[in-house]
């Protein structure tokens, strides 16, 4: 108990703010990565299936796949920007 009290005394307000910012930043990015992770996995899986079924349309599928990835990962990247803003700004 006394150890905990000692720790509580040592932690200052600024430290607490830093800890909360780091925790919030990690949480923000972790949560933001879930959806796009699932989305990109599904998208690329379907694209691979399309290319395997119709190899002659591989070029077109690939371009569309990159477009889809770009739209899907935007949310993860905005999460990353929120992480930077919470952690460093």
């Amino acid at each position, binding site marked *: 108990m006394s150890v905990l009290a000692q720790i509580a005394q040592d932690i200052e307000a600024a430290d607490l703010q830093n800890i909360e910012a780091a925790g919030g930043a990690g949480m923000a990015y972790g949560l933001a990565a879930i959806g796009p992770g699932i989305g990109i996995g599904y998208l690329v899986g379907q694209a691979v299936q399309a290319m395997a079924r119709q190899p002659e349309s591989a070029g077109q599928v690939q371009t569309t796949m990159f*477009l889809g990835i770009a739209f899907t990962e935007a949310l993860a990247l905005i999460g990353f920007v929120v992480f930077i803003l919470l952690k460093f700004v």
Partner: protein
Amino acid sequence: MNLLGAVKFPPIENVIEWPAWLFEDSTYFAFNKIAFIHFLGLVIPMAVFLLGARGSGLVPRGFRTVSEGIVTFVDEQIAKPGIGHGREPYLPLLVSFFLFIFIGNITEVIPFFQMPANARMAGPLVLALVAWGMFISVGVRHNGPGYFKEVLFPPGVPKALYLLVTPIEFLSTFLVRPFSHAVRLFANMLAGHILLITFGVLCISVWSASALVLIQIGTFPGLVAFTAFEVGVSLIQAFVFTILAAVYIGGALHPAH
């Protein structure tokens, strides 16, 4: 116990902010590494295309092969799927976008630069605003003021749903689009830069501490592998930014589909 005590990540200002080389006092004209990379992104494509334009004859050689290859790649892989019919007037813009962004990205892995110019928000934001102004002006020029009606009130939607659809379309097309277009490039390059710094810091820190040399077995191949990965990311991000600009222009040019 403090095994990783030697490993200290530098503050974020130290890895993305560069001191000015020229005009230190000026806020807007300070010339630092980022401005130098942007300048290279302007000069190198111009040099390649000017040298490429000199050659004559049917068989392309030297710089002409390079410049024709770039233009063909952008035309076939980016403009054709993105804009389609009537894409020729927009090809110069797309080629400039592609080369400027690629040079701004690839400096991430080039020694002595080691900094992607697009990891600062200003560059991507300006490019995204250019693309934004471009697709709106193309839409207005080719469809008249009816372009806004076409976008905000898409045909085939029940009347009552316009209450919901119009604000969403307005936000997503005219307000959020340049922002997400810029953030996509910026955040990718910043993430790659931080990733490389993390592995670089691990590699440097463990030289000194004897027991930590074992970590080197993992970190150094990691650094090499991620450097190769970032080369691919630079190419793909330049490609994605350009094809999105092409898709936006194409959507304004042929709003029916």
